[in-house]
């Protein structure tokens, strides 16, 4: 079942891939890859079209697209296709080449090393080399949105209190109430395993996709989702070590060399734990179901945070 946006986007991607009047000879029909409030994605053969969220800022998206298309990010970010900008019901549409994603049925084969190396290169990009004025990375904003969404669903008071306590202990910058301290670097802003594709498909090198949250900020944020999964006891220590070890080996600038990375990871990992827990509570409340074991592990992590104040990274660590 696809939304009207997805159906309209299917026609748009057909036209973009084949020209408005061409007879399509593709063996496969267009596929809806994602259909959510924050983005609808449809693939037709080698072409992928994305209808961005209705409230997407035009100038900011243009700046983000320019970064993805910039030669400095070749081999790090998937570059957009050079097709004229399109619009659909007031939603901006961008076009991308198709890449092969991480197999969602085989997460044990996730390219943790490659993801970390890509982030290290992204973070090391000299900001002066980038075109235009870059917006802020939207990570903290998304954490705030998740907490707001949880509140709107009216969750059980005791559950909400655990999340709220962990949220209120965070420094203002991590709640999107001020800018992050420390030097701002180019960040992805929403790293997870769905943000990697092999291009050219199916055996090309791994690249990062989805620039909607990309911008300047604390690069530790991009490491913080795996860090949060690890701290919640969900991600195995071996996998966490493969990820953080590869990032350090690639001289990623978010963490100090040869030292404990947690002083810089602590606040972002707390924020991502709160964000993930808040979304889990929102979804469970809306579906009128109990939290499952994995969601409870995140809530437990929020609960444990309350007794330990956030770490303040030493200036030298940055």
């Amino acid at each position, binding site marked *: 079942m696809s939304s009207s946006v997805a159906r309209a986007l299917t026609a748009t991607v057909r036209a973009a891939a084949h020209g408005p009047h061409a007879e399509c000879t593709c063996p496969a029909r267009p596929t809806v890859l994602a259909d959510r409030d*924050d983005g609808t994605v449809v693939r037709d053969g080698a072409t992928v079209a994305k209808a961005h969220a209705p409230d997407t800022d035009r100038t900011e998206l243009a700046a983000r697209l320019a970064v993805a298309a910039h030669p400095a990010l070749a081999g790090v970010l998937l570059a957009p296709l050079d097709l004229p900008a399109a619009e659909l019901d007031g939603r901006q549409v961008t076009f991308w080449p198709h890449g092969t994603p991480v197999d969602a049925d085989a997460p044990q084969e996730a390219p943790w090393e490659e993801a970390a190396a890509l982030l290290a290169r992204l973070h090391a990009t000299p900001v002066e080399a980038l075109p235009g004025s870059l917006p802020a990375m939207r990570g903290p904003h998304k954490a705030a949105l998740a907490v707001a969404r949880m509140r709107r669903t009216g969750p059980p008071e005791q559950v909400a209190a655990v999340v709220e306590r962990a949220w209120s202990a965070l420094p203002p910058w991590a709640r999107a109430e001020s800018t992050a301290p420390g030097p701002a670097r180019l960040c992805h802003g929403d790293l997870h395993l769905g943000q990697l594709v092999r291009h050219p498909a199916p055996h090309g090198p791994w690249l990062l996709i989805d620039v909607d949250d990309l911008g300047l900020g604390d690069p530790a944020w991009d490491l913080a989702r795996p860090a949060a*999964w690890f701290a919640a006891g969900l991600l195995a220590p071996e996998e966490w070590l493969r990820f953080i070890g590869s990032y350090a080996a690639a001289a990623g600038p978010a963490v100090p060399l040869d030292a404990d990375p947690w002083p810089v990871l602590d606040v972002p990992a707390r924020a991502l734990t709160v964000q993930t827990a808040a979304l889990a509570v929102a979804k469970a409340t809306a579906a009128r179901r109990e939290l499952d074991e994995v969601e409870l592990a995140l809530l437990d992590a929020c609960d444990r945070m309350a007794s*330990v104040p956030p770490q303040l990274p030493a200036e030298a660590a940055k």
Partner: protein
Amino acid sequence: MQCPKCRAPMQTYNRNGVQIEQCNGCRGIFLDYGELEALTRLESQWAQQVPPAAPPAAPAPAPAPQAYPAPQQPAWGAPHPGHGHHGHYRQKSFGRMLFSS
């Protein structure tokens, strides 16, 4: 050195690279600055190396988790592997979480 409690002489032992002094009289133990933390770290590493509920007579052992040093984690981190959640991709919920914002 002399025991601060009973004044008997103390003997130095080496426990996994950590020097500890034990009193020959009252058996009390003296730890230098940082040694308690070092022992705690060792303990958690050791705990991590114990496979959770390994079958008693597995014919071919899986690749040794000892190959990895124990990673550092925040004070609020989950006890690894005590909780037994982690690495469980078979849990659909975590599988989905790995791929979503």
